[in-house]
């Protein structure tokens, strides 16, 4: 059997007017008839529904019918910081070029320098276009939504279209001029002024997907490549819902690459769709289609959450009643869902599988809660410090980042926020030191004054009240920030006794200061007082301080209390994702399993230990402590030679931070010495 050479399917880009695989729909005739009759028509719906192909085809038909047509691509003019003058001039040039008008455009425009750009355009239509071209004129404007990207308001353009229709009453020539608009937008997106909008006087052309009775042309390409082309096509449509791009793409794949290895068309198409469209869709999406839909949903961060929420509802209820809310219309514009018989449903089975509940759940969790500040900061060239997060907002953002893999820019933003906060705290500290100095001086001055002379009591009183006033002020803002912070500062400087005092005082002022408890835990660890360390870590854990879980677990592990340690770590395993925290958790879980093995000797524990330690190395494979533990695991397997490799990494890389790390490095040195002897 032969097949039609020269017949090819096309997915992506507009089909040429004579494309054999062009599917004629109701909209074709509607649009053609409407334009021929001089009506203003517009086709506004989601991407890749065949708008451009429809435009190309209709234009050919109109031309065949003796109509002078022009296809105006606004993106070709561009949006790059254009002034209205430039833009309208570009538009006029498009018309000159398209209709091959015999006019020196630049000269003509120069002579009308005093007019506004819109007026120039209007005059051009009246005096040049309608005069030079004596036939019926149809202007088809594609990508009309690109107007939204221009730097200047574009209402005038749409008002002009409406004007052209209004002028018909007084000037019959305008009957010869008809507009058609194509794009991905809703009328209110383009112009809101109800008195100037042309969309009230135009005809909306609906462009739904291919229907079975319309797709006979597609069968032609399948002849010779299938026993029953019609059945194949029916199956394809059952998956694509008639979505033009997908339908063409699947037909193309079938013809070009597929060999039927299945019993029925149903199975064959199912396998094809599953393996070539749905699985690994992000890397198979060539030319882009699914990714575009995804981008359209997620692009506007403010809207994304609502769109996802609505889509989720549509998925869960398998269709919801249409209420024509703005968010519903936006979701329809993405192409993901469509409206039929008063209900909103997912467009087709492919989208159902690709953009399923898991996908929605995942994307919802990825949405930044701080998107506005972030975007403003990025747009300011990373300069606008007022956009950085502080205090509670910063804490919430940091909490959210756990379990997320963010972009470099996100991390820069968060780091910059944290740095700013540190600077702010340091500044406050300095301020308070200053104030305490003033207080001390005022105090001295007071004593001085008292000692000096009684006659100066009035002055003294003033100074006293001043110092009390100042003191009172300081007393209010001093506590939590001052002592809590200085405790940390001193810990870092290894002034342990002093750190301990400050932490205790901070806790005294605010028993719920979890940071202070955590820091105090660390101080006590350094002091080798593990009992007290444990107590304060526990307190921090009870107050919900995430990092403390890992530290407390370590304490348990040092006591060989494996079960409690693992229990604790499992609680935070999911929540942790800041790299340091995640690393610590995984490493400690590995340690926990090693501990269990030593107690119970069940092989499962040893395997788990290795797994988690490897996982921790994936987060940060320069960290020696994982290697130290791994070495021990390998030794437990009686592979002492291989263990040496890890011991070496342990010894070389370890910066000793804690008690157990001291032990490990000693062991490492021992083992390595043994070999060299």
């Amino acid at each position, binding site marked *: 059997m032969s097949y039609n050479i020269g017949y090819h399917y096309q997915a992506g880009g507009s089909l040429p007017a004579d494309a054999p695989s062009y599917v004629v729909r109701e909209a074709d005739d509607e649009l053609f008839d409407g334009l021929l009759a001089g009506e203003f028509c517009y086709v506004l719906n989601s991407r890749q529904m065949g708008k451009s192909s429809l435009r190309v085809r209709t234009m050919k038909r109109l031309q065949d019918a003796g109509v002078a047509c022009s296809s105006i691509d606004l993106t070709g003019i561009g949006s790059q910081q254009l002034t209205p003058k430039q833009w309208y001039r570009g538009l006029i040039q498009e018309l000159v070029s398209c209709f091959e008008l015999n006019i020196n455009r630049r000269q003509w425009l120069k002579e009308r320098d005093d007019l506004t750009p819109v007026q120039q355009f209007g005059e051009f239509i009246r005096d040049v276009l309608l005069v030079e071209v004596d036939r019926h004129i149809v202007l088809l404007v594609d990508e009309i939504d690109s107007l939204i990207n221009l730097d200047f308001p574009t209402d005038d353009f749409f008002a002009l279209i409406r004007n052209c229709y209004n002028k018909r009453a007084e000037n019959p020539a305008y009957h010869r001029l008809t507009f058609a608009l194509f794009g991905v937008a809703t009328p209110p997106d383009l112009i809101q002024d109800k008195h100037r909008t042309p969309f009230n006087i135009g005809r909306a052309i609906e462009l739904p997907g291919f229907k079975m009775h319309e797709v006979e042309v597609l069968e032609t390409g399948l002849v010779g490549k299938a026993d029953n082309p019609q059945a194949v096509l029916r199956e394809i449509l059952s998956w694509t819902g008639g979505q033009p791009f997908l339908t063409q793409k699947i037909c193309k794949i079938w013809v070009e690459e597929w060999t039927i290895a299945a019993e029925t068309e149903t199975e064959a198409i199912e396998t094809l769709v599953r393996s070539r469209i749905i699985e690994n869709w992000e890397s198979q999406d060539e030319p882009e289609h699914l990714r575009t839909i995804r981008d359209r949903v997620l692009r506007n961060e403010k809207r994304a959450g609502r769109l996802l929420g609505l889509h989720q509802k549509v998925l869960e209820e398998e269709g919801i009643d249409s209420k024509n809310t703005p968010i519903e219309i936006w979701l329809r514009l993405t192409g993901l869902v469509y409206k039929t018989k008063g209900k909103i449903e997912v467009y087709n089975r492919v989208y159902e599988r690709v953009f399923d509940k898991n996908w929605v759940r995942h994307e919802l969790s990825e949405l930044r809660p701080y998107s506005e500040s972030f975007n403003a900061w990025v747009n300011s060239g990373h300069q606008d410090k007022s956009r950085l997060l502080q205090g509670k907002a910063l804490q919430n953002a940091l909490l959210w980042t756990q379990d997320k893999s963010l972009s*470099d820019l996100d991390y820069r933003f968060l780091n910059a926020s944290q740095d700013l906060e540190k600077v702010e705290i340091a500044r406050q500290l300095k301020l308070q030191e200053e104030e305490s100095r003033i207080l001390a001086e005022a105090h001295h001055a007071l004593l001085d004054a008292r000692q000096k002379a009684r006659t100066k009591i009035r002055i003294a009183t003033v100074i006293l009240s001043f110092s009390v006033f100042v003191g009172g002020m300081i007393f209010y803002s001093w506590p939590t920030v001052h002592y809590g912070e200085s405790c940390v500062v001193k810990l870092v400087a290894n002034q342990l006794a002093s750190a301990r005092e400050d932490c205790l005082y901070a806790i005294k002022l605010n028993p719920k200061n979890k940071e202070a408890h955590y820091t105090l835990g660390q101080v006590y660890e350094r002091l080798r007082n593990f009992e007290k360390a444990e107590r304060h870590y526990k307190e921090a854990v009870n107050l919900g301080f995430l990092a403390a879980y890992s530290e407390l677990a370590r304490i348990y592990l040092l006591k060989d209390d494996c079960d409690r340690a693992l229990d604790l770590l499992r609680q935070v395993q999911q929540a942790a994702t800041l790299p340091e925290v995640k690393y610590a958790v995984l490493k400690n879980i590995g340690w926990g399993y090693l501990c269990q093995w030593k107690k119970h000797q069940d092989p499962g524990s040893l395997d788990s230990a290795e797994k988690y330690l490897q996982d921790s190395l994936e987060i940060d494979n320069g960290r020696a402590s994982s290697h130290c533990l791994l070495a021990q695991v390998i030794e437990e397997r009686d592979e002492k030679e291989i263990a040496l490799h890890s011991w070496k990494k342990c010894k070389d890389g370890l910066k000793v931070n804690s008690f157990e790390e001291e032990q490990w490095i000693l062991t490492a040195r021992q083992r390595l010495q043994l070999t060299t002897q």
Partner: protein
Amino acid sequence: MGRSLKVDPDCINRVKAALHRNGFPSQQALAIDLGFSRSTVANFCNGKPVDYLNFVEASDKLGLNWQEIALKSDSETTDAIVSNYVERPPIETICSEVILRPGSLIRIKAPKKWGKTLLKNRLLQFSTKQNYRTANLNLLEAEDDTLNDLDRFLRWFCIRIAKELHLPKDGVTEIWDEDDPSTTNCTMYLEEVVLESISTALVLSIDDIDRVLTYPIASNFLALLRSWHERARVNKLWKKLRLVIVYSTDAYIPLDINRSPFNVGEPIELPEFTVKQVLELAKKRQVEWDLDSVEKLMQRVGGHPYLVDRAICHLKDRAGETLENVLELAATEAGIYRNHLRDLWLTLQEHSELAEATKAAIAATESIRLEPNITYKLYSLGVVKLDGNNVVIRCPLYRDYLGDRLNN
């Protein structure tokens, strides 16, 4: 002349040494001295295309003989193009068919040093045989300043086309009117001057088009190309235009898809060489090889066209050398790939996230998943292959060399 020259990879070290020898502490210093832009000097020093006159001047400044250090590849003779080319069916046939269609667009995509330029040159040669006119542009020749401004860029673009077609440069300045959008000026030049003057067809080829992706003008420029392509469907004059764009990555930048040439036209993605094709290449280069040798080589470098070709050429020129020897030293500083590997390594070093990702890919035993941006960049460098959504290091040579350096 509108030709561009590149420093031969084997001579790059000489160039860099000459830099120091002549007292230039950095490429920037040389740039200032010569009055060139930094990117021009960078291109010169890294074996990338540089305008012929600049190349000669820079060579002179460094006390080098420009004819000695210049690479004769792009400007290869017709014979060379024909004789060294290994066909990868059905790619060549598709290209030849598509280029004949009015208003067609061909996209050639593959990692760097994959043979894209050879394929493109062959296609241009074929076009010339059809009596078509050809204009061969490379965006690497555009300087930073040019790429940062749409108007400057489009002027540069038109002037390059003028040069290729031997049209007077003045034609561009005459058409350019600041009251009009730059895109309109550019389109007018192409329509009223270029396409008007051509009777058959014009094949406009743009190499390294992904260079523009990192600049803000990208979306406007690409939309312009796309509009020309769409125009060619309906406009008699524009049907003469055929576009060929060549790139290593359509990196993950959310361009509104209806406004770029990256998702229309005929996509041509070059695969690695097969064993059969390597044998054929050896034969063309007049080197006696059997299946065994080919397999040994490919075990080390896979079907990476450049790596394979380099080995063959090296062994052709040096009678005493053996393949075993070459392979043994391949991943070292004494090996035949040292320049290539070092360049790769330097690139990774300049972008720590790429280095990290490569390290992870090397450490992993199976394919791993990386961020799309990084995936595409590593793919375009040729460092990794794609496995669904995951990546895997392309060949043992890279694994050894890069793994070694990344773990220290």
